[in-house]
């Protein structure tokens, strides 16, 4: 019944799943034309498929959603009623006031939601979270067992373990890393920087990355790259996932949402061999060097109340216990009824660690900082600039951008 259209063959491709007319498995029957725009990973596919069972619903799953969403929701009426966001991408929607508070709708229909799912900003419920995501350690337990190695808990231990794996020469590269220039590389730095106790901006909005924490983070990352595929500056999450699946790497700090792919027998040669553990800490006794993310649903502001009501009900149908029971391997669900599997261990250990890692600090300043880091950090890894010079360039670009954006 479902028609999959490959909207674009480019790697930035969008996949649209057109709504089916089947009303099975949905408690309500939806009569209002609804559509959603969200990221394109497996969990969103499961959720939007479940929403489509209510009828009159079209889902657009697009990895470039972060670029499209602010403009699409600013239109009046909004081009989509339902949006899929993460803690990083909700900021422009909040800033522009294009999503509506959900308190009334939660009171009317949200009796099955757990309080943990309600994202509150300034006292108002602005989004309903469905899953948590984090970058944590994934490792080949067969290799570590064979070599008699413990699962590393700090990055120093990761280096010792990687050294031992390289000596044993059992895989091509001991480590993988999501260090593609741009967003990915900046995010890797963010994890390590927070792990070393850094904070990105001062209270007055001036940058604060050219510090010991910044230099330590860059130097640790540089030491790690010695154990990686030399093409690490083009390696994104999908590339690292494939390296695992093809058995070319033994360890990586990778997104929890990628774990299920390791047991996908169609793609993976390492079914059952990859385990997850808490993200390593940068300093002994510190918080895991990573950030916590959530993904969830928002409802557009520029639509009628009837549409919002229908959209909210359909969204809840997509995030119900039935869907979780069917797709429990796709994500670390926050939805009641979720039974964690083997892959969830790492994410849960990360989120419940003490001290716990921060949530990704989403703000206008952080958006500017993330871009500046993504643009300037490659110069350090290609050897053009030293760590201090690189961080100086990051701060300079941040200052220019912040002045231009009006926050300084």
């Amino acid at each position, binding site marked *: 019944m479902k028609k999959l259209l490959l909207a674009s*063959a*480019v790697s930035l491709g969008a996949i649209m799943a057109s709504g089916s007319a089947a009303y099975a498995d949905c408690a309500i029957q939806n009569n209002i034309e609804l559509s959603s725009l969200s990221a394109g990973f497996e969990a969103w596919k499961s959720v939007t498929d479940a929403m489509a069972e209510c009828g009159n619903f079209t889902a657009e799953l697009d990895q470039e959603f*972060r*670029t499209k969403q*602010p403009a699409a929701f600013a239109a009046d009426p909004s081009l989509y009623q339902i949006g899929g966001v993460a*803690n990083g*991408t909700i*900021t*422009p929607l*909040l*800033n*522009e*006031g294009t999503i509506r508070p959900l308190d009334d709708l939660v009171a009317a229909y949200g009796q099955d939601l757990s*309080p*943990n*799912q*309600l*994202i*509150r*900003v*300034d*006292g108002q419920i602005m989004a309903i979270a469905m899953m*948590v995501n984090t970058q944590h350690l994934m490792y080949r337990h067969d290799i570590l067992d064979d070599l008699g190695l413990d699962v590393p808990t700090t990055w120093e231990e990761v280096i010792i373990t990687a050294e031992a794996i390289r000596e044993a020469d059992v895989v091509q590269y001991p480590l993988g890393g999501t260090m*593609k*220039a741009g967003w990915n*590389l900046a995010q890797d730095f963010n994890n390590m920087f927070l792990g070393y106790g850094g904070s990105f901006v001062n*209270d007055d909005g001036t940058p604060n990355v050219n510090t010991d924490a910044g230099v330590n983070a860059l130097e640790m990352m540089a030491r790690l790259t010695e154990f990686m595929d030399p*093409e690490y*500056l*083009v390696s994104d999450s999908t590339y690292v996932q494939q390296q695992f699946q093809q058995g*070319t790497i033994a360890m990586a700090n990778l997104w929890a949402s990628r774990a299920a792919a390791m047991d996908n027998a169609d793609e993976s040669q390492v079914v059952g061999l990859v385990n997850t553990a808490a993200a390593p800490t940068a300093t002994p006794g510190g918080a895991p060097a990573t950030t*916590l993310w959530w993904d969830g649903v928002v409802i557009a*502001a520029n639509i009628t109340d009837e549409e919002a009501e229908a959209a909210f009900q359909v969204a809840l149908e997509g995030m119900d216990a039935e869907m979780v029971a069917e797709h429990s391997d796709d994500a*670390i669900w*926050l939805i009641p009824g979720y039974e964690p599997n083997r892959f969830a261990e790492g*994410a849960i250990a990360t*989120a*419940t660690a003490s001290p716990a890692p921060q949530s990704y600090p*989403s*703000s*206008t300043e*952080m*958006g*500017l900082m*993330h*871009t500046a880091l993504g*643009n300037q950090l*490659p*110069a350090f890894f*290609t050897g*053009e*600039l030293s760590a201090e*010079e690189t961080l100086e*360039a990051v701060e*300079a670009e941040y200052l*220019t951008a912040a002045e*231009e*954006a*009006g*926050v300084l």
Partner: protein
Amino acid sequence: MKFRTFAAFVGPSIFLMLLFIAAPLVSVFTQSFYLSQPVVESVEVETCTPGFLTQTCTTEVRTQPILDENGRIVRETRFVGLQSYRNVLEPERAWAAISSFDISGLLAIDFWKALRFTLTFTLITLPLVLGVGLAIALAVNNAAKSVRGPVIFVSLLPFIITPVIGALSIRWLFVGDGILTRLMEYYSGTDIAMFAQGWTIEILMLFYRVWHVAPFAFVIFYAGLQTVNTDTVEAAIIDGASRWQRLWYIIVPHLMPLIVFVALIHLMDAYRVFEEIVGFSSQAHVISLQWLTYDFLQPDDSGNRAVSRASASAMLTMIGIVVLLIPLLRKTWRDHRGTR
């Protein structure tokens, strides 16, 4: 031709050019001197986000734009003169690097890094495209009639492929353990990583662009070869001119207007190099001016776009193209006047 007929034919085209080229250009030009920013306020906000079992709530000072009564962001626009150009060019930092002969310091600035690559890319591919295009044209022209059709078809194929798709396919052949990297590793016996350093990526980009554009030069030159005066060529043969002499003294001068034409088109296209950067995801090592403009316009996760810097960078790119084209345009103009 009567003026009215002339105007009727040319009018629609001029109208569209004004609407879609001149007007946006004027708009970009103006925007590069203005800065439009949201009016922001700092407010203390409590945000609650899920942990795995319980929520964590944090109170922090957030910078957020002020909304007017219609729910739109209040923006203010002011004239900033050349500030955006300064932000792109970073003249002080660039001058400090130049005066201390610190090339790597200069190339650490995005604009100059992009300019360096864009110029190298344009100036290296230009002679290669002309040379390879002419070589294919001569080869096809001298091939037996029966094979010409298929040879022309095969030579044109790279030109038909969508640029981004072509770049991506070359990337996939070489990235990681792509089949061609494997092949090179097999023959050389060493571990090769084509995407680990800038110069190998640049070579792949140059190769890709020449492979993609040479067919265009070939088609033009091949058409030109059909109009070479056979009497002159035969006379040259009788005079004992070698193949090289015939090529250099008869065919190349005959094709010269076409060579200038292809060079003009190629300079304009190559200076706007963009698909290669995206296709090869080379931004860690090399970026181009066009990519820089795109990067300024790309919103970050918080929805910020650097429109003013993007406008300035776009204007600088256009100025660059005009500067590159001046020698060729002057030559065409002189030839044009000479034939009158």
